[in-house]
């Protein structure tokens, strides 16, 4: 039903860095938290990071970005998860 969908949600607390060079296809990604899902259903991320997050390509540091959100799915949003299946209090 929802095939060939790739949704990357990348949330970092302090910084996020990525780079891609089309010529030689060299990339480096460093992130605190990455959530990769097939749809856009509810995703909640809380993150605390103490330390350095960095990525380098061919020795060059990549400029950091923050709270990057990329959605290339182009599909519908699915909000119809049965509430009975959403259990938040069983463990925490």
């Amino acid at each position, binding site marked *: 039903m929802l095939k060939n969908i790739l949704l990357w949600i990348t949330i970092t607390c302090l910084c996020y860095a990525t780079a891609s060079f089309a010529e030689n296809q060299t990339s480096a990604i460093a992130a605190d938290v990455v959530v990769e899902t097939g*749809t856009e259903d509810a*995703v909640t991320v809380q993150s605390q*990071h103490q330390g*350095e997050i960095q990525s380098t390509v061919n020795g060059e540091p990549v400029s950091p970005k923050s709270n990057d959100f990329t959605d290339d799915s182009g599909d519908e949003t699915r909000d119809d998860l049965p509430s009975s299946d959403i259990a938040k209090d069983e463990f925490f």
Partner: protein
Amino acid sequence: MYHLQLSVLFISLYSLMSVAAEQGAPPALNNRPVVKMQQQQQERLKQRPRNMLEQRNGTVSDYLTTQQVGNKTVVKGVLINHGNVNVVGDEQAKAAGAQIEVENQDNVQVNAVLIQHGNVNATANSLQDAHAQATGTQVDIKGARQAVVNVKSLVHGNVTAHATGQQKVEAVAVGTQVQTDADYQHIEVNAHSGAAITAISQGQ
């Protein structure tokens, strides 16, 4: 009258045998792979390509439990990996500290605390493509229709991915990663990390 009694007797016997057979046979769900915990993953290392070498030192404290509640597979508890994880490969290297994998379950719920104490390093070095991925804690849910993930993640150690190659070169370093391919999901992640997360790519 005699035939009627005989028929009732046969029907009763058949019903009893059917019930007994159903109770004795395991549910079809149990025949499918359920949850691959970290210790089981270590056994899979023997099946890895020879060009990928994984080294783990330390101990794994696995307090995860798996329950079948109705049609839902519930994984909950705590998984702690003490020690460093180093994976070296030529074209591909994937290293994960504390990891939960759930495969081929229709309805999955994960309520877990994942803790990685130690460094995680992935190094890929190739003359062609090179992909290095290092993850402190990771939850993978594959083949599920519904997934509910509630994860608290603590990463105490450096996470480093280092890729060197001459064609497509990719290095990915992530503190906490959650992956699902479910159609319906609800994901809550509470992540704490306290060291360096570094991705290094060296291409042409």
